């Protein structure tokens, strides 16, 4: 459904735009209907930039982003409007997504005016109520309220309800739970799971690995703008191969194991894996700064083991003579 191929994003920086920051480097992955793909990375990894490019809030410098075969980058006016009927985004701060001086209902009204100008009255109200119901909220408890009267979780779910009023097929959820309290976070995550069951494709952008793991089918691990590892969630979490993924997993504060235990396990894994770069060991004549990935298990891909995108590859083990 959504397919990214070799997407790059270069930002111009500095007073005269002379410097450049290569924020996204050769990223490829896809999102299918009924699938949650988690885009995981630390700050500066380019994960939000990718979400913004998918929503056309930023333009890719090169590469293609296709939605059902149509290049999203080339969409203009009407085409873009139609695209937004199917693809919507929800972002980190629910409070800044609403105008605090208006009731939350206004967010539905603006949508009606731009997409369904002929739908008015009771029929529309009923559709809104249905959408609010489908995100697990009681319309009577949330509609007609001001943003400050609702919790962050309720506001986030209302934004999802708004997107559902359209013919939604792809949802980009960028850190939508990082500002919520633990008690309501899980409700929003469960909602993503429910939407997935209804056939929606979801691109879930997050820095939190335990949350990324809870709902997602596939994960894409980003580091300094490049994909270092991707694959089925269970495979990547159970058997992380890239050193960066392993460090990341060993740093996650867990609730059933202390860091010391996780580190001991990680050391055993490192010893078993050795320090050989899996990518350069398998691809003959690959360029040192190659952005490609090799398949280490079905659907489980790993990139070069270098840390920074411009660093040197830690190398491959010399073949044993004889």
């Amino acid at each position, binding site marked *: 459904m959504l397919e990214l191929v070799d997407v790059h994003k270069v930002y111009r920086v500095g007073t005269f735009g002379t410097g450049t920051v290569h924020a996204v480097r050769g990223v490829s992955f896809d999102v299918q209907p009924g699938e949650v793909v988690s885009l995981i990375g630390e700050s500066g990894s380019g994960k939000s930039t990718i979400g913004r490019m998918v929503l056309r809030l930023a333009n890719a410098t090169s590469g293609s982003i296709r939605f059902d075969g149509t290049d999203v980058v080339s969409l203009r006016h009407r085409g873009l409007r139609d695209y937004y009927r199917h693809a919507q985004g929800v972002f980190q701060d629910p409070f800044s997504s609403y105008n605090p001086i208006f009731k939350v209902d206004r967010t539905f009204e603006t949508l009606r005016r731009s997409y369904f100008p002929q739908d008015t009255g009771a029929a529309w109200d009923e559709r809104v109520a249905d959408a609010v119901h489908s995100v697990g909220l009681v319309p009577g408890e949330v509609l007609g309220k001001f943003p400050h009267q609702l919790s962050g979780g309720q506001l986030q779910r209302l934004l999802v309800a708004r997107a559902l009023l359209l013919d939604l097929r792809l949802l980009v959820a960028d850190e939508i739970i990082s500002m919520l309290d633990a*008690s309501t976070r*899980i409700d929003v*995550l469960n909602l993503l799971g429910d939407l997935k069951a209804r056939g929606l494709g979801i691109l879930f952008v997050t820095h939190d690995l335990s949350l990324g*793991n809870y709902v997602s089918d596939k994960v894409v691990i980003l580091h300094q703008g490049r994909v270092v590892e991707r694959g089925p969630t269970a495979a990547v979490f159970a058997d992380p191969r890239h050193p960066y993924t392993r460090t990341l997993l060993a740093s*996650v*504060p*867990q609730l059933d194991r202390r860091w010391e235990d996780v580190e001991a396990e990680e050391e055993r894994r490192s010893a078993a894996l050795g320090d050989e770069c899996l990518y350069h060991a398998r691809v003959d004549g690959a360029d040192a700064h190659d952005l490609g990935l090799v398949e280490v298990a079905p659907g489980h891909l790993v990139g070069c083991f270098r840390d920074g995108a411009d660093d040197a590859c830690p190398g491959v083990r010399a073949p044993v003579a004889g």
Partner: protein
Amino acid sequence: MSLRVDDLAVHYRTTRGDVQALDGVTFEIADGEIMGVAGESGCGKTTLGKALIRLENRMKHVRGTVTLDGEKLPIADDRAMDPYRYRRISLIPQYAMSAMNPTRKIGRMIRELVTAKGVAYEDVRPELERRLRLVGLDEEVLGRYPIELSGGMKQRVVLVLATLLDPSLLIGDEVTSALDVTSQKAVARALVEFRDREFVRSVVVVTHDISVLYQMADTILVMYAGRLAEKASATTVIDQPLHPYTKMLVGALPKVGERYDDRRLTGIVGRPPSLLDPPGGCRFRDRCPLAMPRCEEQPPFLEVAPGHQVACWAVA
């Protein structure tokens, strides 16, 4: 006994009346203890941290006492508290790392701060450099501007600065929040190391992130709507919590490896009551699955096992 808080109540003055943000909390922190304070936004955890060092203008001390190392603190008297601040009690406020003066190099900023407290920078500089190295920072950061450092580096600078005079108590408000997991771990580790090396005697870590507390804290205090719900060792709070609120809070967190398809976790329905005019009795009872008629009476914070206190009629 390092810190003792007795029936402390602090309200916020607003035009609509007093917000009872902290309503009678009583607890103790032992020497060398790292105590985590957890709870949802608006539960009073930040107010508790602030009340121990400085009451803002709109904060009103209603009742209760704070005793540090056997000495009663004049918390309601802003001027009288001054000699204690930074030297005996130090605070890392929320967003401290973003509050550094962007026009000063780190070294000059620290010089100005310690000079304002009557300490000569040259006297503390060797120790400052030693501690920076201890948290993995080169002394060269002193010659850099805040914008040149990452969030994790800035937070470690703030930690070194806050504990430079070996305070008895350090209060860290959301010190590990808004950091990437690798930096979060480095900051948490540094904090534990500072306690181990006795740069600081005991620590209060205020955060909404219980999993970080499980990794670094000795004990966890769970707050709800301005009151204490439960206090126990970190392991007990996570593995064998008693208070229904703690149970639901911990139960709402997915563990790494736990999947939506296998076991669907649930959040806590409802919202905490308004603290402008909170209902009497247990404040959690509207959201509580164990609520019973007796809950209309406020439950005492009782010790149910050594080092394990709970405020709940149903389980205590």
